[in-house]
């Protein structure tokens, strides 16, 4: 049963299995075990990022394409929900319409970019997507009648998902269930389904062809697979998943602006998470997102302590300042690319293989 759910792609490492189980249970009971607004926010962000990063992994880890336009689709999804909800008012209909329109736009755009520039070399594609993403960011902040410009859009959600909605009289397990918690569970279930779907895709014959293209494009073409078609399909699928992740973020924040979903920082975060977690594993996205977001939210406190302890040495104190945590992450990223290109997940799996006689 579990094997079928995970499409036969089991963790293949006891430590990894335990980690994944802990993460799964932790996220499933987060609202009841980790009280407080900040903890729930971190949990929701983890859930959203898992989908976003796993979809990026389909592109980078499985197909070997570097795209810098991934957050563009993330933004399209978020703006779809935001624009529909603010123009039509709160409601499930607006949500569905916004998501549908965003998916359509993502499909057309990713298809166009793919067909236009996936015929050329990886470097070329990376540069083109970088330029397109920059242009799209500008476009979003210029069309202020629709997107609210730099300020973004604040909007309402359907009644069931708004914080003031309280369906139960009494507390459950000592927590008063409100709309926030209901929307968290909506996101959680959705993310679970999407990740299982991605696992299904990468373990299908189609996914195998993608890996063949990643390993040796020339040979894949020679065997008779039309590389351009497969690559384009992969980038379209990945764009659609990213688009749903964006819509999820908009549902959670009830706000969207250019810096929230379109910024280059998020693109960098995706890259860091995929590489540190493990490219071409999907599970890497799960582990990486948890590590990254918990670090972003809580590790900075640790750095602050270190920074204050090092007050005597100004330069060390500056290096350890909590605002500079990306520096350490960047170093970790570079080291990962060198020493364990398959990331954490790859390391854990390799350790298991080396123990077997």
């Amino acid at each position, binding site marked *: 049963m579990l094997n079928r759910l995970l499409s036969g792609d089991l963790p293949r490492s006891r430590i990894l299995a335990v980690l994944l189980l802990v993460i799964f249970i932790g996220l499933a009971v987060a609202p009841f075990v980790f009280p407080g607004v900040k903890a729930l926010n971190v949990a929701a962000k983890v859930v959203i990022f898992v989908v976003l990063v796993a979809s990026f992994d389909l592109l980078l880890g499985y197909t*070997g394409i*570097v795209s810098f336009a991934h957050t563009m689709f993330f933004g399209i999804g978020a703006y779809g929900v935001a624009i529909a909800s603010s123009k039509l008012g709160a409601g499930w209909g607006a949500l569905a319409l916004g998501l549908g329109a965003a998916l359509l736009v993502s499909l057309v755009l990713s298809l166009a970019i793919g067909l236009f520039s996936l015929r*050329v*070399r*990886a*470097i*070329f594609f*990376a*540069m*083109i997507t*970088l*330029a*397109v993403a*920059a*242009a799209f960011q*500008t*476009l979003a902040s*210029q069309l202020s009648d629709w997107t609210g410009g730099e300020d973004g859009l604040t909007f309402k959600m359907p009644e069931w998902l708004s914080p003031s909605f309280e369906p139960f009289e009494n507390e459950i397990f000592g927590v008063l269930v409100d709309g926030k918690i209901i929307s968290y569970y909506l996101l959680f279930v959705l993310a679970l389904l999407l990740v299982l779907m991605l696992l299904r895709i990468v373990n299908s014959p189609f996914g195998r062809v993608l890996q063949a293209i990643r390993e040796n494009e020339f040979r894949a073409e020679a065997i008779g697979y039309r590389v351009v078609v497969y690559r384009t399909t992969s980038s379209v699928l990945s764009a659609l998943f990213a688009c749903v992740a964006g819509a999820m973020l908009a549902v959670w924040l009830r706000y969207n602006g250019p810096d929230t979903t379109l910024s*280059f920082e998020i693109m*960098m975060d995706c*890259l*860091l998470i995929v*590489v540190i977690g493990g490219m071409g594993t999907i599970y890497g996205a799960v582990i990486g997102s948890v590590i990254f977001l918990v670090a972003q939210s809580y590790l900075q406190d640790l750095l602050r302590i270190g920074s204050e302890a090092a007050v005597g040495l100004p*330069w060390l104190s*500056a*290096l350890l*300042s909590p*605002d*500079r945590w*990306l*520096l350490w*992450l*960047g*170093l970790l*990223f*570079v080291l990962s*690319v*060198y020493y364990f*290109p398959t990331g954490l997940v790859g390391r854990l799996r390799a350790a298991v293989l080396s123990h077997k006689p």
Partner: protein
Amino acid sequence: MSFKDMDYKPLLLVPLLALVTLPLVGSPSTWLTLTVAGLAMGMIIFIIASGLTLVFGLMDVLNFGHGVFIALGAFVATSVLGAMGDWTGSDQLWRNLVAVFPAMLVAMLVAGAVGLAFERFIVRPVYGQHLKQILITMGGMIIGEELIKVIWGPQQIPLPLPEAMKGAWLLGDAAVEKYRVFAVLVGALVFAVLFWTLTRTKLGLLIRAGVQDREMVEALGYRVRNLFIGVFVAGSALAGLGGVMWGLYQQNVIPQMGAQVNVLIFIVIIIGGLGSTGGALIGSLLVGLMANYTGFLAPKVALFSNIALMVAILLWRPQGVFPVANR
């Protein structure tokens, strides 16, 4: 890059663009102002992009971290010019130049030195692996930007022009800003030196031959690897110089400026054809002129002018205006 049997069509693009916009802009004086501004911007972009395109042509390495050197150069310049306040505050041009040239020199030296380290630790382990190259150089970019924030702080720093370079000359009714003329001159000088090096010296001959066919040059007994390190350092130094120019052009510097200019230079080298210096010059001038003309004619469109330009050029020549052989 042989200029005997030069493909002349792309060369006509720049004057063509300038002539087509003349009736659109209407008044010749405004047009002159815009053209000088566009040429200045184009020349600065060229200084930055030339190193990147040579590095790519020679070693097939695309450095996504190139932007760090731009920001580095600009920040070094703020420190040097800040320390030479009496020289920049003076209204005599020669005194200002005495301040600006050391700033440029120090920026180039620092950027070149960092380039050397960057090549050694970031780029060298990943030759020939494109995917890893993109990831690693991006990682280098993140680390570099954070280090700049550690040293100079994360906030915007003003970089005012020296006194004598402020203001504009009046030619009839056209106002031509002094600094822009200066930028065009510096850009032309850099181009002349590059052009001379590439076409008239043995070093340039080897670089061009290496771009054309690296294996053959290695077979003839030259170490292209060492040549390449030199080109990488020179390219980083040029990016540092370009950063000083760009910072003075914008009159302020922020740590993220590298990432912003990165997009622009990638568009330029795509238009020019990866690895082609002449193409990079044409691409830079087109992007600079286009940005200024559209900025005047249709400000909303200006933000997308370079993307539109790139798409138009790629539809005409999918490999860029001067495709480099065997790549």
